[in-house]
């Protein structure tokens, strides 16, 4: 089974802190994604990566950055956390081998981040 793990299930940080959210997948997937999930807004894409050291902005990249130094690991960084970044953060991965479009994204369990 594909497994996507996230470093923490729950995280509490203070305003202004630098926050790192880690995601690891074990299926050698090329593509990795970071979303935030908020009630009534569904999932919104923050950043994605289709290869090591490659990254693309999603719909809401402001206030976030990412790092992909190894194929299996994709990190989301909040440079200076703010209260409006309190949310559920979901990581996902998918394979590119079957042609790109239509590939299933596999999700981690999520990290619920609270910024005080």
């Amino acid at each position, binding site marked *: 089974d594909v497994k996507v793990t996230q470093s923490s299930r729950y995280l509490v940080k203070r305003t202004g802190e630098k926050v790192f959210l880690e995601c690891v997948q074990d299926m050698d997937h090329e593509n990795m994604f970071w979303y935030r999930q908020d009630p009534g807004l569904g999932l919104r894409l923050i950043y994605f990566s289709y290869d090591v050291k490659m990254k693309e902005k999603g719909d809401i990249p402001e206030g976030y950055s990412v790092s992909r130094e190894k194929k299996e690991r994709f990190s989301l960084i909040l440079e200076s956390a703010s209260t409006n970044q309190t949310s559920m953060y979901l990581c996902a991965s998918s394979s590119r081998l079957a042609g790109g*479009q239509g590939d*299933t994204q596999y*999700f981690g369990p999520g990290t619920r981040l609270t910024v005080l």
Partner: protein
Amino acid sequence: AQSVTQLDSQVPVFEEAPVELRCNYSSSVSVYLFWYVQYPNQGLQLLLKYLSGSTLVESINGFEAEFNKSQTSFHLRKPSVHISDTAEYFCAVTGTGFQKLVFGTGTRLLVSP
């Protein structure tokens, strides 16, 4: 650009009753459609997907969805729900070429005895 509309934010239903969760999409290119399910305190899992071929697709736990190009819809149905189907359901669309998934806002299915 693509978008997905899930008009119902919450659908309450009694156990063993049928249910339909609605999903409409807009896209200027050929689409690939997905339903994901999120059980409480878990990440999202793929329920079913339409890529091509038969417009009716089924999941292993009794859900089905029909791709209707003329109505730009991909509604999810189950003839008889169980308590364990209580979850949030997300419809998503992507298109030709590598494109990101665009998700709807989700529908919370609440099944009561």
